[in-house]
């Protein structure tokens, strides 16, 4: 979520450190930061903290704990006054909408937003629309509660304002804001007006039927809370992954809906005028206070630390978590009253994470594991595959991994990006054949007499998942055999062999351009070493020569014939014959000057 430093500042009297420092504080204690642009942080809020941290208030709370800066105001810690009634509400299925919350405001004047509001929204990449819509968005990005503004007209039924939430009817039609017309499935929650017409997909997006007009003066501000799973499905069904849907699918606490409706009504009144006639609030369940307890001993045994009571107490205070320290005989237990918005804290381990991360994991010690008391088992398949691997490598085969996806097979995946090769392979053979063909072209470049490949990999055949060992070379057809056939009979005394690791130090990237091969043969006086000649060739051929080797040698009449294969390749372009001819002329000249006779 985009978080503006200026917006955060509204929660603190003390000037906040710069964005870079805020980023570090969050990175090492709460969330990763995807990017920083000017004074805006893109914070990667984890799914467990979607309840409270998809909001500036939630991030401010974190920074308050990390940086030990007191917050000057926290709207979620202010007790709510009784809200006057003014809307008749009917919630058909409380499971779909655990809280109905709406405010009826009369006499508003829709117009441009004040500058501060425009700037805030624009700083986090939102477009300012008008004062009322901006107020609803502001509340969502400020405290995390999605809210929506309707024109009140169609909700009025004589002197009564009626707002309802029910399940949609199959094939019911709804035109969404922006114009997309959809047909409801009968499975999503909808907000309905006084005539029982759907005006909004609950938790996802509003409809045109109750859209605000320039001359609207009466508005209904809705902050009802919708159930996460249904909302998520509805958002997916209609491809409307809105900011609201994102928050509902992460679920927020029931209480937040009530704070949300109050906040949006107050803000609308402040910037668009009018009078709050009253609210409609229906909570289908009462939320019990939650207490989670953890002992100091448990904290230390999970984290491997030696924290003292005062260290833990300090962190809990910084996080604004109220607690009682329950001194029982020898160990101290913290009974923590969990605030309503922290739905992520339910078990002792959750509190341990709070302690660990706020103190900072950099101070957590590193300790080696004690000696293992059990038996370390030998894995039969791995044992067998290591043996096969070593045998094949000794026999000149090199190991490849080819894709498990194929264009035919017994099973297919449903949803492959791009849709190509959706089948799970039933054999290694096709992959190995392709690999052979691809590598054969590079034989000279690789300096290989022949290409020999193997793969140990999984296939799906005859309804089973099997590990196969497959081989292929230019001289033999591709074949495969189940790894099972290589399993050792004597499992009891198996030990992993001490096999060599790759000795490679650094990988050298290779040229993507084609190469050119030239052979050169010459007579040299007997006694002249091939190495000596090769050295002369290398020195004069320059950097285009990427591989060179002796491939033939014989003696006749007191002279020795040497033949070398030279491979040329450039990192920057496709070489032409002309390029290589130039190099070869130089090599010929030098060799002739040595008195060698080019054949």
């Amino acid at each position, binding site marked *: 979520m985009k978080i503006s430093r200026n917006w955060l500042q509204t929660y603190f009297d003390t000037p906040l450190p710069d964005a870079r420092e805020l980023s570090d504080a969050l990175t090492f204690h709460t969330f990763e930061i995807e990017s920083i642009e000017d004074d805006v942080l893109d914070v990667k809020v984890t799914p467990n903290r979607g309840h409270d941290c998809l909001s500036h208030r939630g991030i401010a709370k974190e920074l308050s704990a990390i940086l030990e800066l007191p917050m000057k105001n926290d709207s979620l810690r202010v007790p709510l006054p009784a809200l006057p009634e003014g809307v008749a509400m009917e919630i058909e299925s409380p499971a779909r909408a655990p809280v109905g919350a709406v405010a009826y405001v009369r006499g508003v004047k829709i117009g441009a937003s004040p500058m501060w509001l425009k700037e805030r929204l624009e700083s986090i990449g939102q477009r300012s629309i008008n004062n009322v819509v901006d107020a609803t968005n502001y509340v969502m990005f400020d405290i995390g509660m999605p809210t929506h503004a309707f024109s009140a007209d169609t909700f009025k039924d004589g002197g009564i304002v009626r707002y309802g939430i029910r399940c949609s009817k199959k094939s019911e039609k709804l035109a969404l804001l922006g114009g997309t017309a959809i047909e409801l499935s009968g499975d999503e929650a909808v907000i309905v007006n006084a005539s029982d017409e759907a005006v909004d997909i609950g938790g996802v997006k509003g409809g045109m039927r109750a859209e605000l007009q320039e001359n609207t003066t009466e508005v209904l501000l809705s902050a009802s809370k919708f159930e996460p799973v249904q909302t998520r499905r509805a958002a997916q069904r209609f491809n409307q992954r809105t900011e609201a849907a994102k928050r509902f699918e992460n679920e927020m606490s029931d209480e937040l809906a009530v704070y949300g409706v109050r906040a949006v009504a107050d803000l609308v009144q402040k910037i668009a005028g009018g009078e709050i006639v009253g609210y409609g609030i229906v909570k289908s369940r009462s939320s019990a206070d939650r207490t989670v307890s953890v002992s100091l001993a448990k904290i230390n045994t999970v984290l491997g630390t030696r924290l003292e009571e005062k260290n833990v107490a300090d962190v809990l205070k910084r996080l604004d978590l109220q607690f009682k320290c329950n001194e029982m005989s020898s160990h101290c237990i913290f009974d923590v009253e969990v605030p309503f918005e922290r739905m992520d804290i339910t078990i002792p381990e959750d509190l341990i994470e709070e302690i660990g991360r706020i103190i900072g994991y950099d101070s957590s010690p*590193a300790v080696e594991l004690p000696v293992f008391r059990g038996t370390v088992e030998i894995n039969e398949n791995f044992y067998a595959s290591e043996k096969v691997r070593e045998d094949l490598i000794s026999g000149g085969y090199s190991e490849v991994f080819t894709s498990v996806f194929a264009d035919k097979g017994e099973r297919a995946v449903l949803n492959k*990006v791009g849709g190509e090769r959706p089948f799970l392979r039933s054999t290694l053979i096709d992959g190995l054949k392709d690999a052979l063909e691809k590598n054969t072209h590079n034989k000279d470049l690789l300096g290989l007499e022949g290409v020999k490949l193997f793969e140990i990999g*999984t296939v799906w055949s005859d309804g089973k998942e099997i590990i196969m060992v497959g081989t292929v070379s230019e001289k033999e057809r591709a074949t495969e055999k189940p790894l099972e056939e290589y399993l050792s009979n004597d499992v009891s005394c198996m030990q992993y062999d001490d096999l060599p690791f790759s000795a490679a130090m650094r*990988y050298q990237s290779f040229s993507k351009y084609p190469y050119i091969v030239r052979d050169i043969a010459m007579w040299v006086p007997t006694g002249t070493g091939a190495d000596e000649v090769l050295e002369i060739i290398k020195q004069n051929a320059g950097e285009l020569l990427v591989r060179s080797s002796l491939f033939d040698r014989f003696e006749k009449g007191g002279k020795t014939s040497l033949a070398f294969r030279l491979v040329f390749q450039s990192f920057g372009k496709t070489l032409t014959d002309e390029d290589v001819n130039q190099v070869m002329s130089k090599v010929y000249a030098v060799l002739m000057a040595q008195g060698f006779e080019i054949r």
Partner: protein
Amino acid sequence: MIARGHIHPISSLIREANAIFYRMGFSYVEGPLLEDEWHNFDALNVPKDHPARDMQDTFFIKDEEGKMLRTHTSPVQIRYMESQIKKGIQPPYRVIVPGKVFRNEATDMTHEAEFFQIEGLAVGEDITLAHLKGTLEKFFKEIFRGASVDIRFRPSFFPFTEPSVEVDMRITGVNAPEKLRDKWIEIMGAGMVHPQVLKNVGIDAQKYRGFAFGMGLDRLALLRWGIDDIRLIHSADLRFINQF
């Protein structure tokens, strides 16, 4: 004499990782690539229809309800613990799980739809987050032969661990590859096994605790040898493989 062929760098890394972890008491275990929802998600405390499932884009199998290509090696943790409990063997457990995993995403220089991971799990009465740090430090020191390696934890979230951490490493000293020297690099996710995961396989979560980690082997290979494109690992191209 026939010239030796070449080991794939991933196989070499697995061989080396197994040798290092074997000495620390970890057994090599494996599991199927085609998984069910219970092992890949539910038992790992990833609820249905939860945004946490979006963290891993899954290949589902056509016409086989609830079957998928595993998105991580973690389901093998579940399979291993289930089978131990079934045999009546209580912790301590220490296992590593190297193997192929799948994510349904577009591929580029740093992303592959199929790649390799290595999972580690240690369960016992006395396992702490400090042991996780100690174990990883030892592993990285050995795998980056001779260079000094620092480890650092950052808070993170995985449904199957609590607390959860992201692990960064930094290679220092003259033996460090120049491109990596003194830079913090994100290398894996880890944490203390969520008590619900232990309960799901029938282990007494009051008595036992554990740590778990999962790391991309392709990425480790990239760092270890300075490989510039992850796709080379799956290319079956000997211009690449024959360097190892």
